[in-house]
């Protein structure tokens, strides 16, 4: 068994969930999402985030708009679509179930 790989697989699943959770509060610029995820230690390198954002956008969970920036070229602002909100509610439930299941097993 490869410990690093197992850890990476665990993180991979929750990373998508975390992105949607961050965006559920307000629409964000990619750097804002990165900042939160880094503070929460779910990502180490930023490059991991971009393919996920693009995949979620392609799946219709996110949309983005270009917003003028004071300091330079327009920036991409991401926000949840209504489909994304439903998806997130489902994930919220399944996350709670998972935590419960794991706790049940660990405290036995």
């Amino acid at each position: 068994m490869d410990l690093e790989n197992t850890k990476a697989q665990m993180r991979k699943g929750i990373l998508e969930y975390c992105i949607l959770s961050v965006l559920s509060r307000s629409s964000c610029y990619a750097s804002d999402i990165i900042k939160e995820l880094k503070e929460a230690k779910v990502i180490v390198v930023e490059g991991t985030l971009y393919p996920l954002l693009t995949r979620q956008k392609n799946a219709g969970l996110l949309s983005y708009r270009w917003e003028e920036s004071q300091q330079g070229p327009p920036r991409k602002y991401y926000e949840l679509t209504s489909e994304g909100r439903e998806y997130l509610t489902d994930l919220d439930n399944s996350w709670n179930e998972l935590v419960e299941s794991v706790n049940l097993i660990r405290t036995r």
Partner: protein
Amino acid sequence: MKITVSINIGGWSFNIDEDAYSELKRYLKNLEIHFATEESSSEILSDIESRMAEIFRSRLTTYKQVISMDDVHHAISILGTPEDLSNEEGTSVRDKFASQGYHRIYRDPEHRIIGGVCAGMGSYWNIEPWIVRVIFFILAMMGGIGVLIYLILYIVLPEAKTTAQKIEMKGEPVNIHNITEAVKKEFDSVRKNMNL
């Protein structure tokens, strides 16, 4: 004194040292290869470039107007090398090789009759496993050599367990070069395992 190059990243214009420019170019090329299998790879790359422009901008001041090698390394450490990305995505370098057409012979447990040796060889060379089985059967009739070879291959060949291994198992067209290469590879790995 150094020569600088003028580049456009994410809609920003930068002056960058020539050596830093080659490093940056190499990095972006590697990322392009890394994301080549993604559906919207060009979009991902342009997002990353925009972020890179931001990082570069934060490194420049009135007194420092040129992007140096240090700045490029700083940006790469934030964004991650393709290896970092693979590690974080939980795909090993081995899986990557598999998707790029790296092939090995495995025993195929899903289509086996005895030990999966013939099924594995069939899927590696993309031929019907029963052809391989018939050859082994004929060799077995001729003084039992087929049984011996089968037993050796059974011991030598690993079983395809993970998806990556199953992809690696599938294959290349039959030609002498591929066959000798494959056999050589297997014997090399056995030699390594036995520390000869």
